[in-house]
């Protein structure tokens, strides 16, 4: 019992029935990739939430740093012309 190494952490992404894309729903521990899928199924889709699951080891994700928030994201804050709000979008164009 001395060896209590933790299983690696995985991030879980689920595509809901009505969703177009996979959405991050949380994280879990699993011994390997295949078991991570099964754990994700058991932990995150038990209320009929999903039709597809992605898992990825948390260690394999490269994230932006909060320190970089301003240089990365502030410059787009005043570029109103980048939003397609100056056009009339026909009603039959979905997912805009």
């Amino acid at each position, binding site marked *: 019992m001395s060896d209590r190494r933790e299983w690696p952490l995985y991030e879980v992404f689920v595509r*809901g*029935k009505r969703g177009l894309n996979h959405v991050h729903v949380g994280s879990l521990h699993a011994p390997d990739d295949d078991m991570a899928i*099964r*754990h994700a199924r*058991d*932990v995150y889709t038990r209320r009929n939430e999903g039709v597809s699951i992605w898992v990825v080891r948390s260690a394999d994700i490269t994230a932006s740093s909060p320190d970089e928030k301003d240089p990365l994201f502030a410059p787009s804050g005043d570029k109103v012309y980048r939003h397609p709000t100056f056009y009339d979008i026909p009603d039959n164009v979905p997912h805009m």
Partner: protein
Amino acid sequence: MSHSTPDPNAAAGNVYDGLLEHHDVAGDDSQWAFGTDFEDPLAGVDTTVPDDVDAHELATYCLMLGDDALVLSQRISEWCSNAPDLEEDIALANIALDLLGQARLLLARAAAADPSVVPTLPEGSPVPAEDALAFFRDAGQFRNLRITEVPNGDFAHVVVRTLLFATVRLSLFTRLAESRDPVLAAIAAKGVKELTYHRDYAGRWFLTLAQGTDESRRRLTAALAELWPLFGEPLSTHPVEAGVAAAGVGVDPAAVADEVDVVLEQVFAVSGVDRPGAAPLAGVQGRTGRDGLHTEALSRMLAEMQVVARAHPMGKW
């Protein structure tokens, strides 16, 4: 587990908005990101017993399959909060709940086929027939296999028991989905998907424990040796099973023995585990779990499972 917390003040909203707002289908329940559509497995199914089928025999057969699921569900439920990891805790609880769902449908079918199998409760009791069967019968009236009732051991024990049980039941239910009883066929069709997952889950853990550490392998082979003598019963034919199989409403377990053997042989081979040689545990004067003959562990388990329901026969739950 950690959940990302969306910032409600974020001007651009959060990733869930896409699910909540933009994918509406007119006039449905799309405010719920994941839908609310739950399926009734018996929707549209004709519930009358086919004319030429012996109703009491059908009811007894449903009790056998239902009691297997009920008793093993209770045993696996005992793992709640005791599994090695939170993730396994939830996985086992899901399996227990799947089996409980199967038990409920099967016990309800037994009661509908032959109401005389249902214990008598006080006049005006609101307890439904399937609950009366689950909570107001004694051990001697249960028809489950003994492999479902023996007490839990370690995690390897629940892995081996789930693998053996799910492998047989999946083969049975795959055939039972063609039953001449439309209700049994619908219950089996639903169960096949659940049992496929149970077998897959347990099979993966069987391999993992076999190929893990010396200690995990020792525990796995010990659990297999302990449960193997109880594995003759699930593959032998009880007269009731022979009767319903001949009538085209049930499945003779002996008919799936070869298929079960092939599956288990694959799991053993890939795991590098020898097939146990122990002889099957005999019945007592030919009687086994299917006849209501059980180990004493079942009475103790039922006492705990039934005590609250029995204290309140007029209770509404």
